[in-house]
């Protein structure tokens, strides 16, 4: 009888545990504030976007978006931790709350936006799919790739775009799809494939990992639209707003000429647009549930859009990518942020 009652108590305890854990959908912002840092899902290593440097610090454009969100919430861009995710895991990790946001060079597509329970908050890099081949092949155009073997990453939009493109142009092809980007690049490097295909920015990034980067050329054509942007869970609009406006703040800052160097001086500027952006006037931060100088902290610690672009992927970096379509709308590009008003 003694044993029985003991068992009974164990069971009661177990039941209590089970039912006390019933899901309470808390809002992301308050969870993040309580936890003390933003948990951000990034790639497993893509130079220029999210890649650990020699000292193990994550750097890149996607990383900067995460840091910007941390700066907006905490006033401190260091209060962020990174979770490297494979292409396969990324959406589940976001859906399940393992990460608060994704900034993982993820293409905004309708299926993902509508059927996966996630929301894209904007586009921090306008990309398109391209091809990289060996220079010695003497190929000038993607249309000469009929019959080629293509190495790519399994389960990306890339795989689908390549299939569409080759079929539309009546070209034969062989696809070799790897679970990890590194493996795909390694296979291309060994000569398993004639071409490596992925987002063009990533081609430049991955080329750096090849034995002899100069022996490979990125073909000029872009065969698809790949708007890459941060992703949040569907249904938490407040958190979505913060992530969305963290990016917009950086674009607006570039447009208004505010940089990490002059931001303190700019706080005293007379331009009402700058005053609103930096939280001198208005209660734009409070409306999102964070402090009013949210954008000031982003620009002070991360910089404006131009700064993060040039620092991570720009001309002075090994990637050497020109602004192109990612220039501001005032300079003929696509980066356009709604006004802070």
């Amino acid at each position: 009888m003694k044993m029985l009652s003991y068992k009974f108590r164990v069971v009661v305890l177990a039941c209590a545990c089970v039912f006390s854990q019933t899901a309470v959908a808390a809002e992301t912002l308050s969870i993040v504030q309580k936890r003390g840092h933003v948990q951000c899902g990034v790639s497993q290593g893509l130079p220029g976007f999210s890649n650990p440097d020699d000292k193990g610090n994550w750097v890149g454009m996607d990383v900067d978006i995460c840091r910007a969100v941390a700066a907006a919430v905490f006033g401190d861009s260091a209060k962020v931790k990174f979770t490297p995710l494979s292409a396969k895991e990324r959406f589940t990790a976001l859906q399940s709350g393992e990460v608060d946001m994704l900034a993982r060079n993820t293409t905004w597509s309708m299926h993902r936006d509508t059927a996966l329970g996630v929301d894209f908050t904007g586009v921090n890099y306008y990309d398109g799919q391209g091809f990289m081949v060996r220079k010695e092949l003497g190929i000038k155009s993607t249309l000469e790739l009929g019959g080629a073997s293509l190495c790519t990453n399994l389960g990306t939009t890339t795989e689908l775009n390549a299939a569409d493109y080759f079929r539309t142009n009546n070209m034969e092809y062989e696809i070799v799809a790897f679970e990890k980007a590194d493996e795909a690049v390694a296979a291309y490097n060994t000569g398993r494939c004639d071409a490596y295909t992925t987002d063009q920015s990533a081609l430049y990034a991955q080329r750096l990992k090849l034995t002899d980067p100069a022996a490979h050329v990125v073909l000029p054509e872009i065969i698809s639209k790949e708007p890459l942007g941060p992703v949040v869970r569907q249904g938490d609009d407040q958190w979505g707003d913060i992530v969305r406006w963290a990016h917009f703040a950086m674009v607006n800052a570039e447009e208004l000429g505010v940089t990490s160097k002059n931001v303190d001086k700019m706080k005293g500027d007379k331009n009402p647009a700058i005053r609103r952006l930096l939280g001198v006037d208005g209660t734009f931060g409070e409306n999102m549930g964070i402090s009013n100088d949210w954008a000031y902290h982003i620009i002070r610690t991360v910089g404006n859009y131009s700064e993060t672009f040039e620092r991570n992927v720009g001309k002075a970096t090994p990637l050497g990518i020109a602004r192109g379509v990612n220039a501001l709308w005032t300079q003929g590009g696509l980066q356009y942020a709604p006004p802070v008003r």
Partner: protein
Amino acid sequence: MAEWTPTPPRPAPASSVGFSAWARRNLFATPGDVAFTVLGAAFIIWLGNVIIDWAFINASFAGDDRTACLKPVQGACWPFIDAKLGQFIYGRYPEAETWRVNLVFLFGAVGLVPMLVPAAPFKSFNIAFLLGFYPVFTFVMLTGGLFGLAEVETTDWGGLLVTLVVAVTGIAASLPLGIMLALGRRSKLPIIRYFCIGFIEVFRGVPLITVLFMASVMLPLFLPDGVNFDKLMRCLIGVALFSSAYMAEVVRGGLQAIPKGQYEAGAALGLGYWKTTRLIILPQALKLVIPGIVNTFIGLFKDTTLVLIVGLFDLLGIVQFHFTDASWATPETHITGYVFAGAVFWVFCFAMSRYSIFMENRLSTGR
């Protein structure tokens, strides 16, 4: 009269002793044997040449980047291993903190070696150290965040450290779980029995990689909103459940070999089910299947490499990862890296299998 003296025994004929006789018996007994021996010897000489050329004569031993390994006839690129050795052992674990990992390794060895030597004293103290103190110590040391130790996230763990953490946790968790499952499978209570059979057969019927996929992409969905585990933790759970199913079948083999009389003897002494099992049945059954248990451990150790597919950097994963370092990209880097990783795994697995044979011999003489 001369006293009779026995003739000393004549030595065996020269043709039946010594190397030549041994060779005749074991290498050149029949014409077919001669052919096999010649072929085999030729193969060994050829292979030996290839290996020595590759590993020593044409290999590079010093250098700071790929230029050291680009000779026209290049063998192994050992400087690559030398340059990356720290990464291969600790992954991205902060360099200033690696003493913590070393301490964990050291304590593990100190606890394990006397455990494995049957003659060593203080076994129960040893067990208490390994099962009580050591796991807590390891956890605190590796993750930090307590006693002024800097916190190190598991995403920074890598290399041999992750391999050993996954393997040791899997081994430590799978044995008790496996024993429970095996007892459950032999239980006379149908619901418990069917539950255990179902669990064992499902996990034995699917590949580990699907279990790991489940742990990495599905497990988060099984938990309530806001509750989640570390990725390493999820893989550990997957590996532990998977190997416990295999362990259960090994233990069941031992349980089946125990004669019915042992159970009856337990009952006759007035012992209940748990006491009979704990004091009479399990000690005998486990002793019988030690080789099987060690084999499962070896399998588990090799299976830890699969965590690289779900994005953890175990020893093989980190070696694979460093192939992408352009400053070490040479035609021989891959093979050198694989040979290195293979050798490390081989040493561990071979040691375990020898130990299992040693225990088997020791125990079989005792019976």
